[in-house]
């Protein structure tokens, strides 16, 4: 496709002081491209939730963001433990976050629901023991 820009981010596992850097960086780039502030907010929130999930649940991973004239696509790939029951994981309030993560304010079980709420399209592919890929699209 013509006129697409791809940006890639490595997300280190287990490092909460750096978690959110990819989302912040993307937010800055979209601002420079003069993307509508409401779109930026939705993309940044969805990407942050996905990024944090990779840090907490999957020991990191990578994110590709493809910006084309009519949409922004985020592809988050990890080689973590995978999600056994995706439908259950998508339910608001469902969380397997351990106590030490909960004391940081995570574990409400709202991350995946937020990602769905703020994007126009969201697909999860996951295989236990292999990893998880989350694809999200926001229309421009």
């Amino acid at each position: 496709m013509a006129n697409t820009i791809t940006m890639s981010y490595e997300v280190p596992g287990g490092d909460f002081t750096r978690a959110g850097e990819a989302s912040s960086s993307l937010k800055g780039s979209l601002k420079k491209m003069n993307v509508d502030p409401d779109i930026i907010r939705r993309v940044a929130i969805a990407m942050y939730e996905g990024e944090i999930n990779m840090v907490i649940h999957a020991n990191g991973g990578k994110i590709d963001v493809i910006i084309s004239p009519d949409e922004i696509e985020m592809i988050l790939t990890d080689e973590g433990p995978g999600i056994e029951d995706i439908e259950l994981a998508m339910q608001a309030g469902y969380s397997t976050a351990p106590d030490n993560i909960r004391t940081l304010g995570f574990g409400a079980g709202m991350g995946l629901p937020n990602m769905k709420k703020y994007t126009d399209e969201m697909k999860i592919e996951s295989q236990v023991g292999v990893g998880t890929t989350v694809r999200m699209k926001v229309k421009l």
Partner: protein
Amino acid sequence: MRVEELILEESFRLVNRGGEIDREILAPYCCDLLSFAMGRMPAGAAWVTVMGNVNTLAVASLTDAACIILAEGSHLDEAAAKKAAEQGITVFETELPIFEAALLIYHKLHG
């Protein structure tokens, strides 16, 4: 009401002066669960919370909060203080309970 007006508030202590100190506060918002705040906090909020870690700063920045108010005598930890300075986010600390801190802002907004 602008963020800078809170500097004069006796019960609030400014711990990081951000870049947009003249920003308009649109509403107080209370929640300590980060994904809830992420999903529900309106832009331009004065976010009253007890969570003072780096993730609080990230959520405030991504949701476009006007400022953070750490209530109940809670503090920014070292990494968070550094991040607040880097990202230019205004942070106050107060001994007030969450409800009272939010109510104070509500009264300032609505008289």
